């Protein structure tokens, strides 16, 4: 070992190298720290997400019954979704599979191809090809399952509406959630796959009907293959069933009594606020929304007749002469005139420099309040409104009876109507209130707008000595698993119109007098029940066309005892004029109290020779 130098290496270089290694190892440790300690939760969630898949077990949406709780109005029917799992399929025969599916499912090949994944790696995640597939179709596929490799099906219950006439307005319909709805409802457990009520009871009580979806959790590997046969199951909670106040027989009777006329019918139990029937025409059939043809949702939503509009609560009209009931109430309570006060109707009256006509151009002659209501004399009520009450008192009484405000029925989209005041007119039209405006308001024209339901509430108040119950459609909630009653809706007084009791007795007599001696005595011909009520014929500006109203209740009795029905019928001016509202009401009373169906009522009326029934031809008649 003769070499003196260079037998040892340079130490400082070793230290430099050691320093470099140390720095890199510190960086790595820091990076590991930030991954595993700082960001641990992010990656933990990610790891869970990739390896856990959950499948929804749909909850059964609650059924909806009418007050008889026997036949469901709305129920769920078995329906299937057809799924395709590419990893189970025979790759070479996909085209053949599509053509076979298109035949059996009645779908075009293009539509099926659209739902299938592209030429990707085969996956174990099923893709839905179509839903709403019938049991028969599934059976056809199941019988030849060998030629449908990769196809499977899952149960996906579909909403089915057993009754689809005017009741659809009450029931509403369901649909897939939209992005806008999801943004609002996200915190309430709805997901992008939720089906929810879009209208009517389905919407109003969606939170009761929907229940809660269950889930089945499975762990899957990188290819989406299930790792164990039994995942953990969170069972679904089925939605509660609803019992409505609606009587489907009366609903059907009222619907047919109105007939194919744009308009609405309200049948109300004044003692509780329960809605017995709520008809609006035209309507829709939610079972047909997804089928091509005139019942299709898209077609209906473009219809100029607005079939989705529930005219009983979502449209307000001039109440016309029915509003004279309100003025009569005001006049009686305010005692501005007595029974002996007479107005001489000459067929017209002068106000300022304008001439207003009564509907009877020849004039009614001398009338007191009772006779004027019976004859519906415009001159009398114009004088009463302009000279004795004034718009402020009229508005005060209108509001006391609930006009101009919501009746808080458990359906969405109700409108409040309008009761004009000078301040309102000034604000809206920027013009002063005139005597003519008061006169118009006095006879239920001009700016006054009410919904049929509000009118029903006024009649209910007259029956109840002023109490108006909150109108409602939900009667009770039932737990479907054990049939127990979860909740019962009890009557609740919405407002009270504080008139002296005897005024109501007088009002009821006056209303009876309208039917017996007044305008409607020629059409109220049923032999079952004595009724009281008021007609209304609303001007809408076109000749030969008027809104036709009839606000009534029955049975009318001297002592005002016993259960009663309020019936409001309304036929819009756009229909051919046939003064239909009182006639429809008459048919309804005949049916309700005679326990007859519409067809039986008409047959019976034919027999009795009721004049307005002569033109009604039942379908069975044609067949016979």
């Amino acid at each position, binding site marked *: 070992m003769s070499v003196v130098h260079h037998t040892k*290496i340079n130490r400082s270089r070793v230290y*430099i190298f050691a320093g470099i290694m140390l720095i890199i190892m510190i960086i790595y440790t820091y990076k590991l720290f930030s991954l595993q300690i700082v960001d641990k939760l992010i990656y933990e969630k990610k790891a*869970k997400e990739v390896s856990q898949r959950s499948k929804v077990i749909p909850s059964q949406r609650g059924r909806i019954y009418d007050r008889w709780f026997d036949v469901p109005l709305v129920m769920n029917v078995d329906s299937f979704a057809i799924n395709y799992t590419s990893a189970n399929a025979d790759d070479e025969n996909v085209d053949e599979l599509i053509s076979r599916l298109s035949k059996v499912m009645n779908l075009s090949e293009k539509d099926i191809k659209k739902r299938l994944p592209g030429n990707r790696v085969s996956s174990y995640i099923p893709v839905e090809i179509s839903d709403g597939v019938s049991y028969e179709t599934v059976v056809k596929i199941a019988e030849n399952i060998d030629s449908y490799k990769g196809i499977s099906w899952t149960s996906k219950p579909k909403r089915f509406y057993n009754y689809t006439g005017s009741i659809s307005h009450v029931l509403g319909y369901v649909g897939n959630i939209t992005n806008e709805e999801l943004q609002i409802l996200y915190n309430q457990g709805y997901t992008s796959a939720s089906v929810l009520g879009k209208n009517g009871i389905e919407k109003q009580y969606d939170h009761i009907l929907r229940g809660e979806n269950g889930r089945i959790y499975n762990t899957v590997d990188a290819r989406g293959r299930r790792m164990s046969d039994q995942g953990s199951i969170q069972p679904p909670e089925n939605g509660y069933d609803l019992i409505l106040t609606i009587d489907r027989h009366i609903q059907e009777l009222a619907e047919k009594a109105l007939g194919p006329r744009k308009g609405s019918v309200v049948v109300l139990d004044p003692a509780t606020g329960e809605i017995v029937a709520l008809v609006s025409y035209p309507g829709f059939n939610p079972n047909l929304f997804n089928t091509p043809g005139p019942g299709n949702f898209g077609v209906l939503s473009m219809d100029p007749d607005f079939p989705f509009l529930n005219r009983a609560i979502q449209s307000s009209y001039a109440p016309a002469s029915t509003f004279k009931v309100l003025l009569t109430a005001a006049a009686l309570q305010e005692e501005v005139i007595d029974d002996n006060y007479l107005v001489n109707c000459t067929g017209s009256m002068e106000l300022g420099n304008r001439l207003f006509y009564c509907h009877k151009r020849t004039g009614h002659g001398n009338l007191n309040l009772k006779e004027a209501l019976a004859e519906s004399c415009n001159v009398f009520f114009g004088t009463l409104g302009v000279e004795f009450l004034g718009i402020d008192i009229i508005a005060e009484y209108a509001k006391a009876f609930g006009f101009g405000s919501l009746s808080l029925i458990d359906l969405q989209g109700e409108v409040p109507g309008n009761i004009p005041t000078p301040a309102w007119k000034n604000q809206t039209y920027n013009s002063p209130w005139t005597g003519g405006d008061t006169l118009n308001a006095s006879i239920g024209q001009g700016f006054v707008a009410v919904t049929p339901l509000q009118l029903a509430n006024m009649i209910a108040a007259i029956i109840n000595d002023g109490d108006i119950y909150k109108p409602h459609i939900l009667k009770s909630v039932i737990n479907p698993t054990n049939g127990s009653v979860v909740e019962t809706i009890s009557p609740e007084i919405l407002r009270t119109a504080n008139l002296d009791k005897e005024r109501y007795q007088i009002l009821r007599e006056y209303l009876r007098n309208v039917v017996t001696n007044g305008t409607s005595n020629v059409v109220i011909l049923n032999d079952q029940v004595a009724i009281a009520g008021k007609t209304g014929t609303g001007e809408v500006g076109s000749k030969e066309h008027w809104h036709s109203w009839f606000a009534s209740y029955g049975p009318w009795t001297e002592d005002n005892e016993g259960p009663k029905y309020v019936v409001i019928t309304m036929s819009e001016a756009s229909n051919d004029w046939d003064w239909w509202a009182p006639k429809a009401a008459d048919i309804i009373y005949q049916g309700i109290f005679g326990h007859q169906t519409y067809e039986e009522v008409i047959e019976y009326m034919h027999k009795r020779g009721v004049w307005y029934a002569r033109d009604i031809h039942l379908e069975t008649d044609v067949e016979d």
Partner: protein
Amino acid sequence: MPEIFIWRQMLKIKLTAPSIFGFDFIIFFAVEFLMVIGIFFIYSSGVNSNGVIVTNEFIKQIIWVSTGTFIMLFFAFMDYRRLRGLALPLYLLTILLMVLTVLFGQVVNGARSWLGIGSLGIQPSEISKLTTILFLSSYLNNNRNRISSLWVFMTAFIIILIPMGIVLMQPDLGTAMVFIPVFLITMFIAGGKKRYILFILFTGILTILFSILPYWEMFIASTKINSMIIFTDMRLMKILCTVTAVLIVLSVMGYILARKPYFYIMFYSFTIFGISYIFSFAARMVLKDYQVMRLIVFMDPQVDPKGAGWNIIQSLTAVGSGGAFGKGFLQGTQSHYRYLPEQSTDFIFSIISEEIGFVGNLVIICLFAIIFWRCLNIIIKSRDVFGSLIAAGMVGMIFFHFMINIGMAIGIMPITGIPLLFLSYGGSSLWTTLLGIGILLSIYHRRYKNTN
């Protein structure tokens, strides 16, 4: 006769008491400990989601670890100085084997890197790492008195370029890359001129940077960067090359005439730039699509999350979800549900991280740190330069594997399929490394001049 001689000598050494105490137990146990951890997680990686072991890789690994330990001990007790004379023949032999492999080898994972019959085979490229270290150390040792000359530097560079080139032809980019740090570190420790070493280092880094930049602009940068055209336009490239060449010539002339140092610096930088610039073009030509994609997803895995980015994303998820103490042995979801690819080899660190967490990782890093520390200690304590340089080459190789493999698992290095030594599954690389460690043990053992 010679065999008996070796045995006798071995027995003699083994029975000498001071020699036993001279044995580096620390590195020995650190290595053994790492390998045992490796066996456990190779076992874990073979367990599927139903808890059933589906491969026998861990059994093979046990065999390799135990035979490898014997090889290590054998070389530990053999005098490493014998290898000085054997270095060149061994180097030439491995080169021959590698050429044979390129011509006749079996293709595994796209590279023709296996030589053998049936399931019995070796990877000469793994062995070549060791024989190259030996020959490089031997060469530098022989020329240690003129170590700073350019001639020695160039010759040494060619010594590693030959096996590296052959590995590249297999093609196995990851393994080939290992030769560069081995060369740089050995050269650095041997006392080579820093400017030459830095020249190679800078050229390498710039080449990688220039190769990546156009892809970065294309896939990651949100705005178009016009200056990137110098890497994509052929005409511009020719002009730029000419300009650089002229500048190089001018600075050389300036240096010869004026002998001013800044001419030297100019020449130095322009050359680095020119070479990396041309190399980056060549690299982009040579790189396969999947390699380009690996570079792109390294910069942003979300460019192709289901494809090339999958490995990075899944590995990061595995590592991150492990947390401080891990999910427990055999409890990793990323690994057992097969989200992690290449679990027993390239991504062994990810499964370890997922199951034993940050604390476990610290243990692993500490064990490696101990190995590095002992290697550096051997560099310093070695009785001769040859031993120091072998230790330098070995530590360079082990550290480079450590840095690239773990860096890849935690997303700070691009994906190159090189194993994590001692932990990853694989016989050839384990045997080679253990053989190298055995030589280091021998060097340590004979660190005192008075021992035999």
